């Protein structure tokens, strides 16, 4: 019976390969969503700029943690053909609004209340950060956030801006 448990352990380990986040390619799915200012925001209006999409929720700890860092990245690169869009995934945006009051950000926030955009981008972890190049193509997917990841964000942004 011990052997069977060992077999089970081995089976678990071998047959569940760690699925790494392969970088995406192809044109980024288009969307138009209500933004925090009340106006609609479309991805199309940022064609020609490098776009960083950040899927976040007020209930997600790592998302909250990276928010101030994202703000400083946005401020630094906004004038160099870069935009950051925060896509809030909560069906009820009240909690997000309340949280943003305490942690103000200047980059645009849109509300994906019925998860259409999250679905289109196949968001498989919270937070998820996607980089879109000037031509509107998907380039990089970054899942999760841990301290230090902001350096990777900066690397990608610098590379894509230079293209």
């Amino acid at each position, binding site marked *: 019976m011990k052997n069977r*448990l060992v077999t089970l352990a081995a089976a678990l380990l071998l047959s569940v390969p*760690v699925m790494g986040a392969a970088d995406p390619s192809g044109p980024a799915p288009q969307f138009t969503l209500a933004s925090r200012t009340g106006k609609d925001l479309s991805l199309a209006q940022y064609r020609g700029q490098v776009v960083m999409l950040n899927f976040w929720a007020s209930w997600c700890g790592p998302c909250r943690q990276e928010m101030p860092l994202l703000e400083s990245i946005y401020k630094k690169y906004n004038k160099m053909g870069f935009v950051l869009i925060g896509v809030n995934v909560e069906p009820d945006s009240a909690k997000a609004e309340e949280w943003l009051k305490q942690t103000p950000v200047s980059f645009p926030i849109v509300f994906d209340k019925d998860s259409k955009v999250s679905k289109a981008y196949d968001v498989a972890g919270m937070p998820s950060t996607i980089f879109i190049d000037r031509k509107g193509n998907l380039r990089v997917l970054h899942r999760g956030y841990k301290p230090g990841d902001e350096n990777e964000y900066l690397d990608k942004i610098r590379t894509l801006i230079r293209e």
Partner: protein
Amino acid sequence: MRLQLMRTRWHLLLAFVIGGTPVVAGVLPDDRADVLYHRYQGGGITIQGPSVLVRKKVGDNFSLSAGYYEDMISSASIDVKLTASPYKENRKQENFSVDYLHGKTTYSAGYIHSREPDYASNTTFYSLSQDMFGDLTTVSLTYKRGWDRVYKDEKDAATGQIINDPHFFGGSSSATADHRGWALGISQILTRSLLASFNYELLEDEGYLQSPYRQIRFLDPTDGKGYRTADQTYPHTRTSNSASLLLKYFLPYRAAVSGQYRYFQDTWGIVGHTFEVDYTHPIKRAVPFLFWPVEGHVVLDGSLRYYRQNAADFYSDLFPRQSYQNFEARDRELAAFNSYAIGFGATYEFPQLSWAPWINKSTVNVRLDHLIIDYSDFRAVYTGSGIAPGTEPLYKLNANVFQVFVSAWY
């Protein structure tokens, strides 16, 4: 050690370290520290002491934890009243564990050491848990191994000091008890608000599994009391199976309710059923006439628990005669009984501490549980009572369990 059966000793130490199935394997546990004071009072026993648990990440992939636990026991329980004398005793326990995260798998290993004047225990465990199916499912497997050494205290005739009986077991001062365990845990997100957790555990023990102090009693008309006492004789092995299912639901107004059932069965003939319901309620609105802002800071907990078991095959409150059967026990943990428990807890979360900005969150918590055990075949026997053996009133235990602790996340 006199307080409880050794068979439980080894296994329950583990609860302090691994506990069960994490909901998420692909994330290391939060860094936190807990300092707890516990006090159990009931049935003539008071057990109190501190417990400390500290956990800290090292790099991106490792998390270390270390714990200390102490029981300070002062006892004049029903068991002691029959055959022994009141006593005081300490038990100290240390544990260490390391978790290593690789992809969506967490590997854990740990060591636990416990000692008291008449008992020493060493345990190691190895565990892995794995997230699957888009992280809706977490499967964990655990193997554990324990080695215990059992002594018997006695009063040295010459000096009056308490010493280990040098000839306690087969001419030696100690006996051994070995343990092995395998556990499988599956936790599953079923809907946006419903979580299920299944656990199965197989445990095997071998060696000296009884208490060297507690005694059986048997009828003897020639004795003035109508009965005499003798040493217990337990089997040398025990195998048990237990399986539990827990469902936990998030209520729309932000509260949580959970229900749990556990089935237990062992080779000693015990079958046990545990039912438990828990409710957790955060206070969201200001409470009138309270000067303290509780809204957003206080979480209340309530729980009800019912447990029942039948007696072990070789248990009897009163055997018909001396050496009636091969195995004989009168430990009330092996008796038939119904047990009821009700518990209340409250957590207060401090506002961000300005003098300690590195603490993300800190709480103070209190919890009180009341426990009743209604024995069906364990009688309250007091020497010199004059009551005919077998007609004494059934024993009933009432106990209060109090905890106060502070926790900090950093």
